[in-house]
């Protein structure tokens, strides 16, 4: 691979992320939105709040994939990837909850509507991943920590999906828009233009999360190598 290809591979997706975020965040603020008596201008949060959830789900799925990879091929690198993507996913989830509280304060009148199955599901889902980090903190041996936490990551994932995507649908009601708590968009609320901006925002925010995670993983790798060198000396 020559230098030019490498440059493109390294930077193209970061530039794409930058462009997507800048375009979606600015266009989202000025673009015309359909009239909605209840939401008014806050319907624009579709470009800021909802991509957090999509990004979180994607990052956590990547974390799961690397956990499975670790179980089939136990290398320190796979563990760094798995735990790193989980960290960023949890940060996105917490940002989603906090932004959702503000939106909820406007649209529903209360920042924390515990009757909403989506809120319940997501907060338990976050507890699930915080428990994952507690588990990691409780095991001293590096390899054992990586293996056991990978097992927990895989084992807890069906519950996470059930909490976020299946329970709200089965509950049959939700304050969130969309058909019966459907995580997808309500076609009445979001017209085609809004959806395009939303997808651009999702791509940008998710790629940004991937970039942050990769930086984190590189730092972990350097620390790991440094500590190994010290042991060898």
């Amino acid at each position, binding site marked *: 691979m020559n230098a030019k290809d490498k440059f493109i591979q390294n930077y193209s997706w970061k530039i794409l992320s930058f462009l997507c975020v800048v375009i979606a965040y600015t266009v989202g603020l000025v673009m015309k939105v359909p009239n909605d008596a209840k939401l008014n201008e806050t319907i624009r949060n579709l470009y800021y709040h909802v991509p957090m959830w999509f990004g979180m789900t994607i990052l956590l799925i990547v974390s799961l994939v690397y956990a499975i990879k670790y*179980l089939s091929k136990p290398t320190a690198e796979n563990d760094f990837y798995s735990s790193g993507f989980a960290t960023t996913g949890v940060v996105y989830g917490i940002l989603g909850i906090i932004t959702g509280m503000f939106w909820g304060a406007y649209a529903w009148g209360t920042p924390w509507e515990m009757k909403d199955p989506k809120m319940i599901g997501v907060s*338990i*889902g976050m*507890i*699930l991943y915080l*428990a994952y980090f*507690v*588990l990691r903190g*409780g*095991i*001293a041996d590096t390899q*054992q920590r990586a*293996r*056991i936490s*990978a*097992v*927990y990551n*895989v*084992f*807890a994932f*069906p*519950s996470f999906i*059930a*909490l976020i995507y*299946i*329970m709200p649908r*089965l509950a049959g009601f939700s304050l969130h828009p969309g058909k019966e708590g459907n995580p997808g968009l309500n076609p009445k609320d979001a017209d085609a233009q809004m959806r395009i901006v939303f997808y651009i925002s999702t791509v940008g925010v998710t790629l940004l999360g991937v970039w942050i995670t990769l930086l984190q993983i590189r730092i972990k790798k350097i620390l790991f190598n440094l500590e190994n060198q010290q042991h060898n000396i």
Partner: protein
Amino acid sequence: MQLYKQIFILLNKEWLLEWRQRNTLNGLLLYVACAVFICYLGIGMKLEKISPGIWNALFWIIILFASVNAVSKSFLLERKGLSIYMYTLVRPQAVILSKIIYNALLMLIIALVALIFYSLVLGIPVQNKSAFILTMVLGAVAISSVFTMIAAIAAKAENSFTLMAVLGIPVVIPLFLLVLRLSKNAIDGLSYSVSVQDFAMLIALNAIYVALSVILFPFIGVNH
């Protein structure tokens, strides 16, 4: 040796161990009795009849916490040398399956005892009895399969007993919510056709968790 034979032998061993030192089993039953009595004191004395919703929630919460206590000992209290020796003889799949089956049976016994105590002090407002029993069986399998695997995971970390609840309860909540809803439907006397979707969902989740336990348990490893 075939898998089912190994499972049978291990089940036999679990039961023998339990039967020889009956104090753990007795303690568990007493725990359930105490919990039911406290519920009675807290609610039943004031209200002549508690609403089915509260009855349902209390019943399953008692069973959930009894199960955390019951299942946590399945990996945490094992003597290490003995278990390592035994696990060289049998397949890991047989170990986890036998533990799940044993814990499910234990859970059913606990649930039945809790139901008996409940009927004594608070009455049983269940209308669709067969649906309630089916829910109890599925719930016992669900809770035991999740907590058995979580106990195996938590046994590898420090302060395992606390970690057991922290790790297990968020995982079990979707199953628990389904069980709560199904048993509420059974109490209200709704027919099977209403809750068939939930039953299918619960069975599917059960199958996923048992399969995941069997696949993932060999990775945990028994040697410390």
